[in-house]
């Protein structure tokens, strides 16, 4: 039973991270119809930038905020320079975002080398014991931050004026333009948010899993799979799909074999692509009749 809880917690931690990456995909996809294959790189860059700031002697909080903002701004730039010009061509969008991911990874190699970087845990105390189960304090940070962020995003989309504008733009961009809603601004906002969310995911997981130049790519693929599981374009589904995928992976590697981890993820991808391409929840903004 103790192993079960141990696995459950590690699954939840990884699942939350996948969920955040998946939300990053969703945010961009909804307003631009682009699947940003460089989404994972936001997490990598966020973590590495924060680590560097800390070595310069800044506090963790300040470093993290700077890392998040920098990645967000970088994402806006990428959208302006590379993604907006191709318009609606899906194939080009795919290859360009892959190109962006290659460039960002290369940049990370130049700046940080191929060695992994670590962040300090957020709390002094390393572990808690609950019964016989050992829980890392950072695990609580990850779960807490993720749940707060996901909840916050949900409230943003459903309760604030700007969030509704965002959804309106995703549902019907032409009509949104008639209301005077500037599409470029909303696109920029989408990329900024997805970069920020991705960076946060990278920063909170970095103390538990070392980050290096290619860590983002792996996270990106898992995040995409989480999107497919939950229903592409649906932020709630993305979170759900992420947690589900994290749990499945954890249990598969805990009870079957650790090599099964990736196999499970790809299996889920194929199962959902071919059997239920709409994912578990389907569209977020669907009309309930």
């Amino acid at each position, binding site marked *: 039973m103790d192993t079960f809880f141990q696995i459950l917690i590690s699954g939840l931690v990884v699942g939350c991270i996948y969920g955040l990456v998946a939300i990053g995909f969703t945010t961009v996809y909804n307003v631009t119809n682009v699947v940003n294959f460089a989404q994972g790189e936001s997490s990598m860059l966020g973590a590495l930038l924060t680590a560097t700031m800390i070595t310069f002697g800044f506090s963790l909080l300040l470093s993290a905020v700077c890392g998040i903002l920098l990645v967000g701004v970088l994402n806006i730039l990428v959208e302006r320079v590379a993604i907006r010009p191709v318009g609606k061509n899906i194939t080009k969008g795919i*290859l360009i975002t892959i190109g962006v991911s290659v460039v960002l990874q*290369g940049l990370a190699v130049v700046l940080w080398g191929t060695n992994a970087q670590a962040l300090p845990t957020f709390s002094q105390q390393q572990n808690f014991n609950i019964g016989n189960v050992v829980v890392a304090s950072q695990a609580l940070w990850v779960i807490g931050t993720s749940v707060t962020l996901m909840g916050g995003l949900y409230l943003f989309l459903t309760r604030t004026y700007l969030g509704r504008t965002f959804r309106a733009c995703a549902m019907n961009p032409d009509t949104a333009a008639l209301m005077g809603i500037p599409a470029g601004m909303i696109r920029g906002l989408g990329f900024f948010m997805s970069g920020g969310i991705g960076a946060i995911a990278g920063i909170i997981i970095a103390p538990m899993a070392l980050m290096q130049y290619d860590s983002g790519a792996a996270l990106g693929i898992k995040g995409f799979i989480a999107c497919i599981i939950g229903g592409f374009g649906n932020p709630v589904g993305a979170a759900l799909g992420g947690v589900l995928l994290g749990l499945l992976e954890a249990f598969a590697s805990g009870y079957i074999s650790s090599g099964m981890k990736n196999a499970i993820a790809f299996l889920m991808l194929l199962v959902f692509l071919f059997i239920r391409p709409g994912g578990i929840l389907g569209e977020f903004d669907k009309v309930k009749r």
Partner: protein
Amino acid sequence: MNRAIAPVAVVLGLVGIYLSGNDYLINLGVVCAIYTIPAIGLGLLFGRCRQISLGHAAFVAIGAYVAAITSNEYGIDPWFSVLLATLTGGLCAWAVGKLMFRLSGHHLAMATLALGMIVHTVLVEWRSVTGGPDGTALINPLVLGSVDLMSDRAFFLLGWGVACLLLLASDNLIRSPFGLGLRVVGESESVASSIGIKPNALKVAAMTISGGLAGLSGALYAYWLGYISPDPFNVAFSLKLLLIVALGGYSGSWRLLVGVFFVVVISEVLKAFGRWDTIIFGLLLIAAMLYPQGWLGGMFDQFRQSRQATAGDKRGELN
């Protein structure tokens, strides 16, 4: 007459390289040949039919490993193992095509990307068969009569012989009804079915051909190097192939060589930049998408058109 210019120029250039006796150039030439063969297949699939495959390295890997394993473990004649590798590549691609072409756009891209990674993982994990991350050496060389083909010079001839034959065939195919059908499907599937063309059948056919050629190239690569490991068959390799097709003007014929030479030469030049090489490669990929056919391929096109115009030759492609 114009149809002959590109092939003749290419062959003359290759003969020149061979006669120069420069080992470095010949070695690069072999690399080019090995990139050209799968690029021809991808030229049909991605260039003509506009179906993206981010996992093409998987078929090359399958070819390489099938050749290595059948010849090492089962003592099959190396030439026959090359044939077997080609067929296996084609068969796998056919099955993948049947399954995947129900998808399109982002989903197709991700599914093929996942396919590439699955194959890569299997190659690393299935140690008993593949030798794991350390790879495996090929014991038996390719032999023609009594000539050992393992040297760069011999392989240069073999590789380019095969590549040129395939380019010729692909060039023919593109001009045939089949090739026209591929272009129609690539441009609009609904138009294709409105004029009686079955989009899926053509897509699967293109996929099968490209898988077979990828397998062939993998097998040749394995015999040339005499040693294979999972490492080279990564996503970057698939991306390089796509870049070649894009730079070659999305064509499936001789123009691909523009992309091949460019990518191989650039890769060599970039080695001097050390860690900056991937950055430049990525920028190149982005630029190739943002300025489609605007440079290399386009320059080639303009050159050809201006030649055609001056020659007063108004024959269409079909004659």
